[in-house]
């Protein structure tokens, strides 16, 4: 169970996240939609402390972090329970695909190398990249890189996986394979918080959808409700623009 209370983030004078409350149940898949620059990515980045929130609390299971006075240890603990999938993949350029997946297990979780390698090979099989374990990121296609990115996040065994527009940087031909992998992850009842512009995919995978506008959550509900009977006028306009 994840509980976000009063999460606020300002950049300079601009409030990017304005008092966000959001609860996510275990195994739930929540998709965040909304126009560009409304704080969707910042929300995810704050949960992983890639951006430091100014106010609010983040609770994941028995770990509760108060943003205003989070210590280094709090931040590390929070990061070890959240896994992040980046828009631009951000694979470690100096490590092979398999090493990318192993890195958190070996360096952060201090697991034996052989065990980590075994787990990494399992994940490579699951992501359909068994033959790419020894390839460096530069030698992989965008779709393959993002699958490794998702594999790296899977390896952590986090309470929640955060997907920050995972297909936005991809050539259209690679989008399908990445979404397929995310469906696989979802089938394992992995708790997921996804920011995406893939509306069809969102509709299909989400247990619940959240519409953000101007740093606030304006409307939330099941996909049928969001797409079928949107209440807020801004959501209606947004859906028209994206063509649903």
């Amino acid at each position, binding site marked *: 169970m994840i509980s976000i209370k009063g999460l606020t983030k300002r950049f300079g004078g601009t409030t990017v996240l304005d008092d966000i409350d959001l609860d996510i149940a275990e195994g739930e898949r929540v998709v965040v939609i909304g126009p560009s620059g409304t704080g969707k990515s910042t929300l995810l980045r704050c949960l*992983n*402390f890639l951006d430091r929130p100014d106010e609010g609390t983040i609770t994941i299971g028995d770990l509760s972090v108060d943003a205003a006075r989070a210590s280094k240890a709090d931040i*590390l603990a929070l990061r070890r329970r959240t896994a*992040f999938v980046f828009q631009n993949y951000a694979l470690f*350029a*100096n490590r092979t695909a398999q090493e990318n997946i192993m890195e*958190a297990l070996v*360096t952060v979780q201090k697991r034996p190398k052989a065990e980590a390698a075994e787990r990494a090979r399992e994940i490579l099989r699951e992501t359909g990249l068994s033959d790419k374990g020894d390839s460096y990121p*530069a*030698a992989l296609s965008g779709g393959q890189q993002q699958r490794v990115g998702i594999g790296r996040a899977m390896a952590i065994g986090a309470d929640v996986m955060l997907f920050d527009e995972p297909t936005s940087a991809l050539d259209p031909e690679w989008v399908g394979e990445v979404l397929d992998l995310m469906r696989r992850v979802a089938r394992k009842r992995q708790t997921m918080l996804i920011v995406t512009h893939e509306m069809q995919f969102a509709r299909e995978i989400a247990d619940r959808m959240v519409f953000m506008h101007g740093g606030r959550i304006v409307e939330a509900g099941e996909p049928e409700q969001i797409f079928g009977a949107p209440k807020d006028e801004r959501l209606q306009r947004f859906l028209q623009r994206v063509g649903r």
Partner: protein
Amino acid sequence: MRALDLDYMLGLVPVILGYVPLTLFMAVAGMAFALVLASLLAVERVIRVPVLDWFVVLFISFFRGTPLLVQLFLFYYGLPQVLSFLTNINGVTAAIMGLTLHFSAYMAESIRAAIAGVDRSQWEAAQSIGMTQGQMMRRIVLPQAARIAAPTLVNYFIDMIKGTSLAFTLGVTEMMGAAQKEAAGSFLYFEAFLVVALIYWLLVETLSQGQKRLESRLNRAFAR
């Protein structure tokens, strides 16, 4: 004008070559220590530890701002008068110390620039999986910075090999010191210094071959 005494020169080659190991020892030891010190200085410059940062800036400024020869004299002839435990410091140790401090100041700046050249997303990815700052630097950022900094660092190493010749002013008989002694005995200064120049040149050229191999090794992960 007189003819070169080629027989003398040929005879001198093995003599000077005998001092190559000492020259290389000073350069390799100096480089190893300088790399460690420069990395620490560079990381400090990036993360900026209060107070310490001030000392690091001062250190880099001083060792870049004064000639290597002056620094070597300061360590070998000057410091022992003030710090008694340095009274028995030998020339080789003082030379390695001087080379280390001098070159680490330069190398710190190029490593710092290389660290800044590592893509921001690499830092974020390391943070996102829960690495500590130290783990991130050691495992992700510094290895990639090394690739960026390699060509400049090899240049400093070449400079350091040549810099070891100054050790002869501290009474160390290395390649330059040996050539100087031979020349003083034979009065064939041109021949003696030409031989030592050619051997330095050969040494550096051999190293440049190694540079290409090092760079292609560091670029391995980035080949498409």
